């Protein structure tokens, strides 16, 4: 197995933390601007490699993490495609999670992000909060009702088992394993209307 410096560090980290090492077990909410006595922004950070979420260049990025919080994100210098470089969107990927408050100068979670499930009821003009459990239960019920009411078992003498009433859009944003699960989830309830960002 080829090991670069970075891969070696990761391999050691993995060995240290066991098979689930690539998932962090704890997350600290206490983070803020780096204290001035630390001479280096990335002091005591762990590095994780990732791939940019914009165009299809597949540029490598390195996420520097301290105490479960993202401290920095920049190009992966070992990556053969981007050699550590990132375009403006890639260079701003850190901000998807954390941004600098322009009033206080402190680093905070991006307020534009929604991090709780929401539901909008019929005829209402705003969102309501909903728990994950309730949201999933309600969606499952919707799927069953819609599917059972609109299901074609046989067409032209052929077993077809599809529902015309449910559509699914997307997949180009997800990882491939997720794409497979989305595809599988949708096709196994009989969905024909599957499409993704390949065209739009």
């Amino acid at each position, binding site marked *: 197995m*080829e090991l670069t410096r970075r891969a070696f560090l*990761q*391999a050691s980290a993995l060995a240290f933390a066991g098979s689930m090492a690539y998932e*962090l077990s704890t*997350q600290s909410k206490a983070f803020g601007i780096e204290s001035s006595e630390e001479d280096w922004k990335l002091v005591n950070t762990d590095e994780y490699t990732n791939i940019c979420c914009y165009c*299809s*260049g597949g540029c490598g990025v390195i*996420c520097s993490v301290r105490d479960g*919080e*993202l401290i920095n994100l920049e190009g992966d210098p070992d990556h*053969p*495609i981007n050699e550590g470089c990132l375009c*403006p*969107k890639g260079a701003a990927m850190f*901000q*998807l*999670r954390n941004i600098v408050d*322009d009033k206080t100068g402190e680093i905070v979670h991006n*307020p*534009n*992000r*929604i991090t709780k499930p929401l539901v909008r009821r*019929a*005829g*209402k*003009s705003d969102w309501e909060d909903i728990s994950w459990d309730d949201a*999933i239960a309600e*969606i*499952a*019920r919707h*799927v069953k009702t*819609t*599917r059972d009411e609109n299901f*074609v078992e046989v*067409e032209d003498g052929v*077993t*077809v088992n599809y529902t015309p009433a*449910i*559509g*699914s*859009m997307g*997949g*180009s*944003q997800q*990882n*491939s*394993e997720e*794409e*497979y*699960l989305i*595809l*599988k*989830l949708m*096709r196994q309830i*009989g969905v024909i209307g599957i*499409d*993704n*960002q*390949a065209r*739009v």
Partner: protein
Amino acid sequence: MTGHYCDFKNADVILTCGSNNLENHPVSSKWVQRALDKGATWIVVDPRFTRTAAQADIYCPIRSGTDIAFYGGLINYIIENDLWQHEYVLNYTNASYLINPDYNFDVSTGLFSGWDPTTKKYDTTTWGYQTESESTWDTSSTGTYSWVSQEGVPEFTPPTLKTPKKDPTLEDPNCVWQIMKNHYSRYTIDKVCEVCGMDPDTLELVYKTYASTGDPAKSGTILYALGQTQHHYGSENTRIMCMVQLLLGNAGMAGGGVNALRGEPNVQGATDMAMMVYDLPGYLHWPTVASTPTLRAWCEHETYSDGYYTNKPKFMVSFLKEWFGDNATVGNDYGYDWLPKVPKNGDDYTTIGTFELMNKDIMKGYFAWGQNPAASDPNTSFNRRAMAHLDWLVVADWTETATATFWKAPDMDASQINTEVYFLPAALIYEKSGTILNSGRWLQWRQKAVEPVDQAKPDYEMCDLLYRAIADLYRKEGGKCSEQILNTKWDYYVDGKIDPRPVSWALNGYNVEGTDFSKGKVSLLNGFANLKADGSTANGIWIYGGYYNNSDAPLDPAQQPVGRRGHDDPGNLGLYPKWAFSWPANRRIIYNRASADLRGQPWNEDKMLVKWDGSKWVTNDVPDFAANKTNADGTTEPIPPNNKAFFMKWEQNANLMTTGMKDAPLPEFYEPFESPVKNTLNGSQNSPMIKYAENESVKKGDASQYPIVATTYSITEHWQTGAQTRMCPALDEIAPQQFIEMSEELAAEKGIKNNDDVRVFNNRGSVKVKALVTKRIRPFTINGQTVHQIGMIHHWDWTNMFSTGDVVNDLTPNVGDPNSYIPEYKAFLVDVEKA
């Protein structure tokens, strides 16, 4: 992409046409610059003088939507000036194949032979070959296809190989070469200039420069993106580029190929994974009512008579085995009937069609996974009204998108909309792990760096929650065809928790024996060559075979091919075979057999990918052809060079002319759906097979009302509908508002000054944006008439805390391509006025 990003450095000429690669695929700039530093020439053909054009050696303007005229002219130029690569074209393409004598193209009507005016479809029989001889598969126990007769393999009648007639002299009037030569003889330089709007000197310079790569030692690459594809003949645009690359012998070369710069991070993966109506993972076809109602029919209809796709039943049975697990047996056709079949009106279920279905109250529930059709699809104001017919909508995303809040749109009345909308907060890319593919088909592993903020969850976890909840309901209450759901294998857990790694096992493929996901035990397949049609192997997507194949450490991606980080670069060609994994089988440049001549000697030693040394193949890249064969006794021996350079085709030669497209055997120029001028190349204004053009919602505009050509595009600072990038303050700061680019001439005509607010409108909508008046945009003279074109960026909508704007896709027409169903975003009509 047939190549990959690093490969651009090997090109002698780079043609950017239909992409704005510096702005929208900025990493390409690094590799284009490397090529330039080695002396390459860079041509940019674009309606606008972009930041990409600013750095190119040659810039040539082109009216949006006229690429086939441009490339048709290039083909004509190559043929007329004898600049094509003779040995390559003669041996590796179907140039010498004889076509059915009934084939015809009628210039006056713009129709090919086989047109049925009632169904408005082509019967492609007359586009096919004349047959020389027929042969059948040897499925005996010692035959090449002995596997067909083995136990467990579904019964099917193997296809008959019809060897085509050929004329190696290329003189026969029915041979592909003569038909093609004749077809493009109308595409003269003057004609192309008249249609596309550039001047003949510039065009000829472009043709001459690019055609220079017909020199066998040289390679030219074409970088394209949605500028080529987002037309109602976008697939033909792509095909004609392939033809050019074949004529010049560039396909399969290092620094050559046809390179789609794809726009989404994992759109390559989504396409591979068949997140489309008609597709099945790995570019197979999903079962349809019309052609493949049974597994037997599928095997008979889909399996090629020769070439690598003779193996399709292996891929399909393995797919069904992975999909249904133990529930799939040879006795029940491996569960084939439980898969939903695409009905005859399957086209209606693609993106554009789904909104019509909603509008007709046929589609009632909708999932949007990180996609934003209420802002990104064409004719979005219609789409929003259609979505209001939905009973329910589920959106999984990072932020409030236009889709999640279509009921909050300025033109919608929430009190009248009864759709129940669920927003599921998704984890960011570095808050979860998994595989992503780039345009170069590289599968790379993403490591999770941090936990999702608050209650956000990865999409895989959402899928799991939904699957379990739905399956529970059917288990408890029963319902329509509940076995479809309950027989599906869904066991991708590690320590009881949903996890992407077992899914990776499924995608890579595994031996059924020795595998038990529930026990964390898996016998991974080395590659797709190990797949079998007898139910002993399982695989979710055959082309990924080998990306995650180390059974010794199935839970450690770093010890899998996908997690490799090696920098070896044999041949110094930027192939990096030990970095991650590239499908298929870690091939970095596909069709690489074509990088060497008939005797297996590289056209250019410096760009050696594969080479026959007289007794074996010496390789820098994994051979994308049958380089070795396995004998009955299990030994392998090399296969000496032959002409089978394109073994994914049944002919094993590349197709200059094809029956594979629905709308034309040879790309022919038609005007965009909405165009200010008449088609002067043939008698049909639009492609006869344009999709959805007759839908009421389209509201076609004509040039008397809306004389200005508009095209939509992205800028480097933002991305797609801006849902992600507008949430990044640093990006809003460097590109705060939506603008259109227009010429000084048009601005003067309309009394518009730079930075003015302007209104852009047509029958479908009206948007207010800023005007950027610039010399970089120049009016075109088409057929002697002045045609103005504006460029519109499309990254805004009403959502977001930091930056909002109008939805530009309210203006785009919801018509599409008959092969890919892609909408025509790149050329439509509008008018502009000062706001």
